Every structure is written in C-alpha cells, then in structure tokens.
C-alpha cells in the first residue's frame, strides 16, 4: 500500500478541520490540535485504479496564541492550502504560507482549497488574484465543508499532483 503524508495548512478558522471531518478516519479528538498543534487523520483515495492511503496532518492554523510548527511539515509529500472565501486576508495568508513552505521544505505539490463556497454571496475574494494564481499553475478548487462540495476532488487533485 502506498502511503503519503500530506498536510493541511491555512489561517485560523478557515475550516480545515470541518472540511475533512466527514471524509476521514480519525481516532484523535480535536483537542490535540490546540495542544500538540496537530491532529492526524487518515483518508484512502483511489486515483487511476490505485489505492493510496493519505495520512493527513491537520496543522493548527497560526493565531495570536500559538505559532505554527513547521516541523510538522517535514516529510510531507504535498499539502492542502485552505483559505476562507469570505475572508480576503486568509487568501493572502495562503499565498505567504505557500512561499514559506517553499523556503522550509522546498517546492512540493499543493492544492489551494477555497472553503465556504456555500456562502458565495458573502465572498470578498478578489477574482483577479484567483486567476492570477491559477495562471501561476496553482491548482485551485472551491469547497464547502457544509455541503461536502469539492472535498473529494481536492484530495484527488492533490494525489494526482503528488504522483506526478
């Protein structure tokens, strides 16, 4: 069985945990995230008839109280960069996170997931920035933790990118 470590990165409260809650196997409570700074879940995906086990490190988003632990990114084969469509700053943060990742562990595959697509009317996202990023070769997907939209697709897309 092929296993891959992937991380979930994004600002505080962009819905990283909610996004995957319904889609993963988990034995740990979310308390770990606020204590150890990470919560580990597992998700099996099937890409091109190939079963891949994704070990998902849901890393606590940086906030005023806790800094993100970059050590947790070590050995990751890819990551989901999560932003909140209703908060413009989170996308900016995502961009800077991507840059930081590149510095820390190198260029590894990632997918930008813009969450809360169910609240599309409240979005304050700059479509220009979005298309600009897409032009840079970023894989961008919109998702909703509420409806489940785009979640499976995000994992599949990331997996494809990782398998190259």
């Amino acid at each position, binding site marked *: *069985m*092929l*296993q*891959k*470590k992937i991380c979930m990165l994004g600002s505080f409260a962009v819905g990283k945990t909610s996004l995957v809650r319904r889609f993963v*196997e*988990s*034995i*740990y409570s979310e308390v*770990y995230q606020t204590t*150890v*700074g*990470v919560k*580990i*879940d*597992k998700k099996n995906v099937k890409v091109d008839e190939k079963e891949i*086990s994704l*070990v998902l*490190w849901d890393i606590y988003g940086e906030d005023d109280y806790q800094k993100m*632990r970059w*050590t*947790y990114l*070590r*050995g*990751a*084969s890819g990551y989901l960069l999560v932003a909140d469509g209703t908060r413009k700053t989170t996308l900016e943060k995502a961009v800077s996170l991507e840059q930081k990742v590149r510095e820390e562990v190198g260029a590894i595959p990632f997918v930008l997931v813009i969450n809360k697509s169910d609240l599309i009317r409240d979005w304050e996202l700059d479509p220009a920035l979005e298309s600009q990023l897409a032009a840079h070769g970023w894989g961008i997907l919109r998702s909703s933790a509420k409806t489940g939209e785009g979640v499976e697709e995000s994992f599949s897309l990331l997996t494809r990118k990782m398998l190259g």
Partner: protein
Amino acid sequence: MGSAPRHSRDPLEFRPKMAEAPPTRPASAPDEPPLEPDAQAYLELRQLILAPEQEALERLHQRVDDPASRTEDVGSVVAEAIQLRRKQGGDEALSVALAPTIETALRESVRKDPATLADALFPVMGPAIRRSILETLRSFLESFNHILDQSLSVKGLKWRLEALRTGRSFTEVALLHSLVFRVEQVFLIHRKTGLPIGHAVASAVAMQDPALVSGMLSAIQDFVRDSFHTSQGQGINRMNVGDLDVWIEEGPYAILACVIRGIAPRDLRDRMAEVLEDVHREYSAQLDEFDGDTATFVKVNGELSRCLEHRYKEEVKTKSFAFVYGTAALGFLLIAGWLGWRSTQYNRWDRLVNTLREQPGFVITSFGREHSRFVVRGMRDPLAADPAQFIKSSDVNPADGEFHWSGYYALDDGIVEQRARSILSPPATAVFTVKSGVLCVSGAASANWVKDIQSRALLVPGIHSVELSPELNPGRLAFNQAKSQIEGGVVKFPVASAALSPAESLSLRKLAENIRSLLLAADSLHQSTTLEVLGHTDSTGAEAVNLDLSQRRADRVSWALGQLGVPERILRARGVGTTNPLRTEDNEENRQFNRSATFRVIAPVP
C-alpha cells in the same frame, strides 16, 4: 579501466615527436601576408599533413596548463595509484601521509554536522556500546544487590526467603519479580514522514490504525523536540500511562516504538536497538528513498515481531529443587496413601464378596467400583442366608457400597433340602437328606403323607428323584397298619360258649376287611403271611374243658372269617386256654376279656 591503454594516451608519449617537430614546423600564422601560389599550395599541403598532430599538441598543452583538467586526469587514476602503492608495500607510508588529512576531514565533518557521521556509524556503534554497558550493568547489579540487602520490606523479606530457598542471588529474585510484561505492539515509523513502515502486534490486542498512531507518535516527538529545543536524536524515549509503557528507540531513518503492558526488562531495550540496527542495515537504501511505498519492506514485520516478547509472573516463579522435590514427594505420599486406602477398602470388599460367593444360594455376577461406590450384583436364593449377617461380621463400611440381588433357585444340597422341607412339610419324625438332587426320606411318617411323596417331591426345584427308607415303603406301612388293627381286635364270647353274638359277627366283617388290606400289602411286599386266631377262656372251670372251649372259639372265628372271604390257607386256629390271658381277672369285666379270641399276624422277614 586498465592502466595500459591510458598510458598510451599519456601526453608524455608524444615528447619525441614534439622534439622533431620544430625544425619542420612552418611559420604559418593566420595574420601573415598572402604568399605566392606555390607557397600557398605548400602551406596548404603542410597544413593538411601536420594539422592533426598540431591540434593534438595544442590540446595537450591545454591539459597540462589547465588545473581543472589536470585534476580530472589525476582524479581518474588516484584510486588505481593508491592500489598500486599498497601493492608495492608502501601502504604504511601512505597511511601516515593520509592520517592527518583524514583526521582533519573527520573533525571538520563532525563540526559541520555530527549527524552524518553518527548516522554512518550507527549500525556498528550500537553493539560495541551495548557490550560495554552490559559490563557496567553487571557491576552495578552487584551494588544494587547490596542496597537491596538493606531493605526489610515485607516483599523484600519474601524475596529474600525465596532467594535462600532457591539458592539464587537476591538481586536475581528481585529482578525476576519485576519482569512481568508483554509487548503488545511494535511500530517501525519512518522518521521523516511519520508514516508506518512496519507494524507487528501480539495476538488478541485491540489496536488502532498504525498510520494514525505512527503519525501522532512522531508528531509528539517533533512537538517535544520543538518545544524544548533538544537536538536531533534526543526525543522522548519512553512514555508511561498507567501500566502501559511506550518505549521509543530512534535510528537515523526510522523510529522503533514498542507498546508494553507491565514492566519490561532492560534487555528489551537492547533487543529494540538490535532490531532497529538490523532494519537500518538491511533496508538502508529503501529507508533513505522511502516515498510511502511499503512494498519493499515485506520482511520487516518479521524483524519487528522479534520485539514481541512477553513474560508472565507464573513463568518467573522459580522454586528450588528441594521444594519441588518436597512437593512432589508429598504429592506422591498423598497419592500413595490414597491409593493404599483405596486398595485396602477394595480388598475388604473383595473378601466379603468372596465369602458370599462361597455361601450356598449366592451367585456373584459382578463386583466393582461405580462412581466411587462398591456395587455387588448377583443372584440369591430366597432360602439362602441373609447377606446382612456377612456384612456385619466383615470389616467393610456398609455405607460404601450396595447390593443388587435377583432371585433364583439354588441347587446346593442344603438349600434344596430346606426348600423340600418347606414345600413338602414332613412330620417331625421324618428325616430329610438331599444329595445331588436326590431326596432321601427316612424316619417315621404316616402312610398318608408318604403315599404321594414321590410325585410331590419332584415338583420341588432341584430334586430329580426320591429315595424312601424301607420303613417308609407304602406297602410296608399299609401292612403294618393293617397288622396293628388286626392284632388290636378282640372277639368276645359268652361264658362257656363258642357262639358268636350278632355284634361280634358284625365286628368280624370289619376285621375281614383289614385282613384283605393286609394281604394286599403283603402281596406288594412279597411277604408270606399267616394269621393266627387264638382262642382264650377265663380261669374258671377245668383246664381241659377250657382248652377245648378255647379251640372251639378259635375255630368258630376262623370259620366265620373264612365265610367272610378270608382265604383259609392263611388261617391257623389255636386254643390256648388260660395260658395267655389278655387281662388279670380281678373283676368281671376283665374276666370277660379273657373269654375271647385274638389275632396274631405272623410274617417272617422275606
């Protein structure tokens, strides 16, 4: 690549040619003024002939002058040169020459990144260090022993007693008591990714997804290392929750974690290190290039299961030989005693059963122990002795057993005799004896009882024939009966008369019948019989007269009997006068008895 072809291309080989070359070399620079056509043609020819050599020469110049290409040349032969040097026997000088450089290089390497060298040395350092630690531990144990010697806790005393009993050192006993553990799960975790490479689990252990546990374990390692700023290789090596222990051993590429229930011995740590080293040695390339595919680590779980040790309290309980033998001997004695008691009990019952077996009227069909009770089965004649009396006089406990009897007719003589007696109810005067089914009857019995005894006795089970003693012969009995009746008869006459009164004539009829019975019986006995009729008179009167009278009286009765059908040949009439009086004539009535005729049956023994 061999050295010979390389030498042929060595720039030095071109030297002789180079020495000859300058005199023939034309002065032909590209910026020279144009020459005559002939000169031009010569130049071209020259160019044509000498150009390749000239170019080669040019290249050689460049190689010699350029440090980079010189390095390249030396680099390609340096290994061979060192080899050659060693072959020539100069390796000591070489070592001396290289040592400072190598030392400096190592120092530099350690200064730059100690991990590199540590990683390289990891597989070889472990065993060496462990050996040295073992030595240290051994001496430490001695002092540990000393410290424990001082302890006087209840447990300590208990262990001390055990040590005394078993002849082991106290330390050993104390340690043995601590060695109660089980390794439930073993994880081999890729250090960089936190992904599980291998997972071994003991049987019947509830386990979580190894990927999640591995991830979290390495996250916690990272967390601790990060939080306390420890260096690489200095993470948690033990976590303890209740009676669960997680022991972690770190290698350069992988982490080995054992989940242990209970208190594991120190040498498990050594085992873990050994396994981790073996894994690193065997899979070093795969570990380095691990991309999440565990397919190349197929055999790793087998390695990991070497750590799945366990030891239970029962196993470490050691007993001295003396104790074991003592227990065994006691057990043996108990068993022997019990067997002995059992056997005594059995023998008692067996004796009782044999006694019963010998009794008439008993047949034992089976005897044995059923559900720890003795059970005797057999048949018993109702007339046989009561078994209770034998049980009472034996030494068995009646409560330990039971008897099951079914009825039958025994053929033992004694029993058959008893049976005949109870069925045939003989008179007290009769004597019964039975011998092999033959009933012998003797003594006295009435003719009536004897009459059908022959047929009745055959109905008694066990009797197939009857023997009557001669006196009980029915014919004889009838004969005797008739004889006594006849001989009891008295025919009375009036004074001085031989005439029969009508009453007496009537009584003679009865007498005649008795005589016929007598003759019948005599016939069956082949007995010749004579009936003597005796005539009597009283003592009055002359003797001669009386004698005559008595004769007439005898004749008269004899005649009358003849009239009544009694054959005359058996009758003997005889007058005896007064010589044989029936009674003393002290009164008239008695005198009357003497005026009579009486009878005597004469039957000579045949």
